[in-house]
């Protein structure tokens, strides 16, 4: 098989970028999309040119590193997979393929197709955790969690943090990502004590990072490699509204207990 690739090249975060056209030869239908790009890069190296930088690691659809917009769709034409799970038999021989990076203000381009997704980490740092210390946890079976509840939490928890939802959203919003994290922890009893603080802090962090807001188009859900449902966004909104009401009833500063010496 043979393809004409139009690939976004950009030297660095502050350099201007442009599309460059490459030919991919001797592609077999059993090759993965990334293996096809490997081939292109090996040929570029053979000519002494700089290969196309793109991100990848596990190549089995779980690490969330790979991040290509292929012909206008994050992770390419198939649903429920990451770029590394896309195989060339999906394309017609001789097709033109346009490859772009995730595009969002919150994901600055580092080089070519590699973007900086630390914004998602910072959202997590704002509140995406259950603050329990290591050690001293009660027996795992003390807390009974119904199968349905556990499965619902798992549905949300399967997010791999690739950022395709942001790439697909017309507003470059990270709502589906935040929704998955918030819903996972709010569904489980372990996450309940901090649920108000968590949702508020994470949504504030999302705004701070420069992600857009949700327009309820559900493009995020359609490109999510792990089929995270947009109903978790409704769940996130519910949590947020609830947090606003619950928190408004609390004193803004925790009242100091009786003057005890510490």
């Amino acid at each position, binding site marked *: 098989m043979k393809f004409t690739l139009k690939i976004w090249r950009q030297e660095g975060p502050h350099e201007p970028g442009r599309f460059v056209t490459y030919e991919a030869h001797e592609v077999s239908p059993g090759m993965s999309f990334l293996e096809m790009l490997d081939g292109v890069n090996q040929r570029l190296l053979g000519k002494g040119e700089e290969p196309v930088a793109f991100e990848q690691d596990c190549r089995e659809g*779980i690490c969330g590193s790979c991040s290509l917009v292929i012909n206008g769709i994050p992770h390419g034409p198939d649903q429920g997979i990451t770029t590394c799970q896309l195989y060339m038999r999906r394309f017609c021989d001789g097709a033109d393929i346009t490859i772009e990076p995730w595009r969002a203000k919150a994901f600055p381009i580092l080089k070519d197709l590699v973007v900086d997704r630390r914004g998602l980490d910072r959202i997590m740092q704002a509140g995406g955790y259950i603050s329990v210390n290591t050690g001293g946890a009660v027996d795992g079976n003390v807390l009974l969690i119904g199968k349905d509840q556990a499965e619902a939490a798992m549905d949300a928890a399967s997010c791999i943090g690739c950022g395709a939802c942001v790439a697909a959203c017309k507003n470059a919003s990270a709502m589906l990502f935040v929704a998955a994290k918030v819903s996972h922890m709010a569904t489980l009893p372990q996450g309940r004590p901090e649920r108000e603080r968590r949702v508020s802090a994470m949504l504030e962090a999302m705004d701070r990072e420069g992600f857009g807001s949700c327009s309820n188009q559900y493009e995020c859900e359609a490109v999510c490699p792990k089929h995270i449902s947009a109903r978790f966004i409704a769940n996130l909104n519910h949590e947020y509204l609830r947090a606003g009401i619950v928190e408004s009833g609390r004193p803004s500063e925790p009242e100091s207990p009786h003057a005890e010496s510490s």
Partner: protein
Amino acid sequence: MTRLNSKIPSGPLESKWDRHRFSEKLVSPNNKRKLTVIVVGTGLAGASAASTLGQLGYHVECFCFHDSPRRAHSIAAQGGINAAKNYQDDGDSVGRLFYDTIKGGDFRSREANVYRLAQVSTQIIDQCVALGIPFAREYGGQLANRSFGGVQVSRTFYCRGQTGQQLLLGAYSALCWQIERGQVTMHPRTELLDLILVDGQARGIVARDLVTGRISAHTAHAVVLATGGYSNVYYLSTNASGCNVTATYRAWKHGAAFANPCFTQIHPTAIPPGGAHQAKLTLMSESLRNDGRLWVPKVSPDHRLPGDIPSIERDYFLERRYPRFGNLAPRDIASRAVKVVCDEGRGVGTGGQGVYLDFSDVIEQQGLDVVRERYGNLFDMYHRITGEDAYQAPMRIYPAPHYTMGGLWVDYNLMSTVPGLFVIGEANFADHGANRLGASSLMQGLADGYFILPYTIGHYLATANLLPIPEDHAEARGAIQLVETRINRLLTVKGHRTAAMFHRELGTLLWNHCGMSRTEGGLTSALQAIPKLREEFWRDVMVTGSGDSFNQELEYAGRVADYLEFAELLCHDALHRQESCGAHFREEYQTEDGEPRRDDARFAYVAAWEYRDQAVPVLHKEPLAFEFVPPTMRSYQ
């Protein structure tokens, strides 16, 4: 290097760890604040260690080469995590998990370490539940278990097919908390390129910022390596492409002993390679062997479609050779059996590299829906990669390098032979002996990171005399200079072959001569070929771009350069171990019916290798005493 001192506490097995913990010195809270620990790697071991150390009050500098700590390769573990909870009341216990692990490791691991691992396994599950990990549950709300990887009890906890990812996300979220609290400073996209030793103690690292190319020194009071295994030395493996040996190999060059490098596990159920373009091998969960039957045609060549071959002309080779365990035989045994039938020319598919994994019987007996429910996602994955429908025709599978039991030698405290250098998770050699059982790597990574290292490192920090070190210390400056020289050397070769070409060539060489079965002749020839390849590499490698920018080719070339040196160590170890045990199979040492022959009289020891500049590495032996489980023939027949 002095004699290896494993520092195993005396006394009964059950109370060694408890008494050891009590005898350890503690660091007072206000002193912890003044102590900095470097943690390299953010997989299960690294993330859990960094978060726990941060929680204890140390200042932690944490490094990973990914864009986010959540992407470490622990994330890819599918199957589950073992723990001796005995929730199923099927006769499991700490003792049984200990026994299974020792036996599974073919009596090449330390009793005390393994027993401790089994003891803390139960705490891991509790901790993970508290962190909000959505383990599979029964309808009544209790934790669900499944049987996994060649054991006879159900002790494996799981989160669908994503246990590794969920456990890592748990550790990562704990890490996020500590980052938010300011206890941990995270350095993503930063790769360790060298260690800094001052007065013989590990006091820091030299790291390269992968975005800007800046090389800088980071100093601390102790260094923890949690940098994973080295299966990628084989080029094609189930590891992520970023996994590499650089950190542990650099540590080895600084005097940390490397133990049992030849114990490399080959996983039986990967999708066979499809051609020269292949960049990695995809693992299919071992759970497929619960219902699938492995077979090849009895005679070769057989060009019929698998469905057209009547069952009488099929050789269900695992069931034939190991009637008691059948298709559930441990990984090393299954892999080797696959290799034997493929070597006989009975392999199926491209290049005869593959055997059938057939579900037609279970589909017939239990129905398509049952199989779809159990393995639907795996069948989909197989379909996506190969374009074949495994409900119609059997899958084809072939073994692939997967996990490395070998690693840097550590004592009971998880400290290497370099004082202040701790090694945890897959990067150390400790607990799996010559072969790892399924669902045990997650357990070991978290045991080290959550429950063992945080205690033992405290004792070191409390007792070692550690003066503060500025970041521009002479040793640090020297180390930076060495790293820069090496990078410049890579960039100035300007040869004709890419790093990937060298890597592939090395991988093929190792797979052929130091893979599933090894011979003296093969290893000797590999030991001759590797230095030549290395020399060619440094003469003819092509690295584009510059050192002071984002340069993936440069990162990769540096890793390949280390593989080219490390491969020699791997072969030395395999050559010296004149026995067959666990994942290490020497063709000269087998019984008449092709089973491995272990030699406890000569080889019941840990082989710890010491680096010598420009010379053959020196072997140190740590004898293994089995006081509680007398070694037996590991038979699964």
